[in-house]
């Protein structure tokens, strides 16, 4: 194929978009349900903001003080529809000193995954996911989710999906099953999900992407599952933060290690009212941001960026602006051996 002029490119793009496609897997009912939940939360946040003006200091102290606040590993049961849950303020992630507390670690991994280079973590809301092979050229990717101690997570039916349990060989002698959905047009072709009870009693889920021709065999998934460790470990990150303004609650954190030579990055987001502030650290020159409201600086071969969403300028100015926020980020170095688990100081 060649592209000699713009019309030719337009024709090729049209042909690509018009190529045969699998059945659509989104639906308007889901969006309406989720949209209503977001609107409810927004309304509640607006009401809550008034009360928060008087209680902000106390609340912040409770959430950020050692031992205070909720914990990220208090996960929702699997299949609990987040959007239909009663609207609640976002739970802070992590611990008072580290926004990224890992709940599951891989042990054995197949040789196409490097345990040091290809495994990352993501804490978002009440969920912490351990990710391997993210964004690799093969499309193969593994995500591990460890649920909190308690009852077996339940499966939830939606208008799009009616998941079922399909018995799997026991993992370390404990109950295991595949989650399948024979009624869904693409569910089973796109993924393989193993759910099992770990030695700690906590339930875990291993999700394997299944690109055509690159499926991870079931016996490999079972071997990976058998070597998974559960617990709570603070992730080592390439930066630490100091002087964070009162009232900021850690809402998201991640250590992204994409496969295929893409640069790693680490980040933490904090919420205050309707505003989210995010700090992102990555090897210098490797990040590209799409928003104008991002400020970066470089130190120790790392790029340190601060960005924000949903905030007002006066509130941001109160925090020293984005420039001031980047100065709260202290990089430790490019070498992972220098990274720290004592992130919030």
């Amino acid at each position: 194929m060649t592209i000699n002029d713009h019309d030719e490119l337009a024709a090729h793009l049209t042909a690509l978009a018009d190529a045969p496609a699998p059945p659509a897997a989104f639906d308007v009912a889901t969006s309406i349900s989720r949209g209503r939940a977001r609107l409810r939360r927004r309304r509640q946040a607006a009401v809550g903001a008034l009360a928060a003006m008087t209680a902000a200091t106390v609340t912040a102290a409770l959430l950020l003080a050692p031992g205070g606040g909720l914990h990220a590993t208090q996960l929702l049961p699997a299949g609990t529809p987040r959007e239909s849950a009663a609207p609640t303020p976002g739970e802070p992630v992590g611990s008072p000193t580290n926004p990224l507390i890992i709940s599951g670690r891989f042990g054995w991994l197949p040789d196409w995954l490097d345990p040091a280079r290809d495994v990352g973590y993501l804490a978002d809301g009440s969920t912490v996911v351990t990710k391997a092979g993210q964004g690799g050229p093969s499309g193969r990717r593994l995500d591990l989710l460890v649920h909190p101690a308690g009852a077996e997570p339940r499966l939830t039916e939606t208008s799009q999906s009616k998941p079922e349990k399909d018995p799997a060989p026991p993992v370390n002698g404990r109950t295991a099953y595949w989650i399948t959905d024979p009624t869904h047009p693409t569910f089973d072709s796109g993924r393989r999900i193993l759910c099992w009870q770990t030695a700690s009693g906590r339930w875990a889920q291993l999700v394997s992407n299944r690109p055509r021709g690159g499926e991870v065999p079931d016996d490999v998934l079972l071997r990976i599952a058998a070597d998974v460790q559960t617990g709570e470990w603070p992730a080592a990150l390439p930066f630490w933060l100091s002087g964070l303004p009162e009232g900021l609650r850690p809402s998201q954190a991640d250590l992204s290690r994409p496969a295929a030579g893409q640069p790693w990055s680490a980040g933490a987001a904090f919420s205050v009212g309707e505003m989210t502030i995010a700090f992102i650290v990555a090897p210098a020159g490797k990040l590209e941001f799409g928003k104008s409201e991002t400020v970066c600086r470089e130190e120790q071969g790392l790029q340190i960026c601060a960005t924000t969403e949903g905030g007002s300028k006066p509130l941001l100015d109160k925090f020293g602006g984005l420039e001031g926020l980047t100065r709260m980020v202290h990089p430790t170095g490019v070498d992972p051996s220098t990274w720290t688990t004592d992130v919030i100081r």
Partner: protein
Amino acid sequence: MAKQTHDAEFTEYVASRSGWLRKVAYLLCGDWHRADDLVQETITKLYVNWSRAKQVENLDGYARRVLVNVFLGEQRTSWWRRTVRRETTPDAVADSIDLDASLDLRQALAALPPRQRATVVLRYYCDLTVDQAAEALGCSPGNVKSQSSRGLDALRTRLVARPAVAERTP
């Protein structure tokens, strides 16, 4: 009653335009399942802002801008909300049925940085002017021009330099 009308209008719009949005999403991300995730999130955002959105002069342009922002937002930040959603409906990367030529272009597009890819899609698939693309991307027209130019150069280079594929697919 007002709520029913609100939802009916929204549903009607989505029913008529979701196919088009899905195609744009597919060209942006190169994967039908991920495109579905992008569209799901886009129409959710559209619903949340429907009262305002339905009054804008160019509703398709508004929806397209939301879609591009959702796509770029995924690229921009490493915390990816669909990871959370995977608990119930995990995403998937199952390949669609590809024609060889389409596969060439899809791979060439995938090699572009996200904003270049978005610029190419907006300019040459959605047929937007430089100014319209700049508005959709939230950047300057000059930036669109430079991104388009680099994107086209990269596509041409990749698509010309593919003898291995040509040999593989007689």
